[in-house]
């Protein structure tokens, strides 16, 4: 098993983000998520902590093909 993590400093020094169509995202993509952790009231006077999604940024889609192949196996 090979694992990767993005070198963040290098990423933000030299690159920028641009808007993209949501259909571009696939299972296996490396992404960055912006979210807010909030408590919401649910039925029965209870509360639940959820992570509300605000934005999704595609960092790298080159692993997606590998992921698709492995799913089919």
């Amino acid at each position, binding site marked *: 098993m*090979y694992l990767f993590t993005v070198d963040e400093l290098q990423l933000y020094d030299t*690159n920028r*983000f641009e*808007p*993209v169509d*949501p259909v571009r995202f696939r299972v296996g993509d490396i992404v960055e998520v912006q979210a807010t952790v909030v408590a919401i009231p649910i039925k029965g006077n209870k*509360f639940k902590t959820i992570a509300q999604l605000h934005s999704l940024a595609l960092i790298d889609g080159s692993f997606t093909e590998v992921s698709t192949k492995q799913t089919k196996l």
Partner: protein
Amino acid sequence: MHFMILQDTISTAKRTQGYLRQTVQVTGLNLPLFETCIDNMQHLHQVLSRQVPEGDMEPFAPSTSPSYPSIEFGTRYFTSRRDDPLGAATPFDHAVDPKGILTSMIADGYFHSADNKVLYYRLAPSSANNQQPRYVFVYSGRTTVI
């Protein structure tokens, strides 16, 4: 924080405006950075739990499907007028609702607000520096930069 997408679905279990939402499930494949993220979310959950009467907060449990810890992030398509009586309604983005199905579901009690929007971006290498994202290669506890 960076993740790998596990599941990117539109939840249609309940076809009502109040529940319809877009979600993304992400995993960090047990990498320490992602474990830190889960620890932080557990900490925030504890902070929030202290704001409500004891026992009223549902327990926080990250999903472990299929085999690694993962977190689901979601945003509802509609806001109830009961929760936000004066909020401004905004149109659905064409990329999010290309066939106008969600637009046709806007009813008296529900509207699409700025809080319901999810923004989508991709990393674009700058023209000055054409480098792709660099990855730190982790194998058998040893770290090598490639």
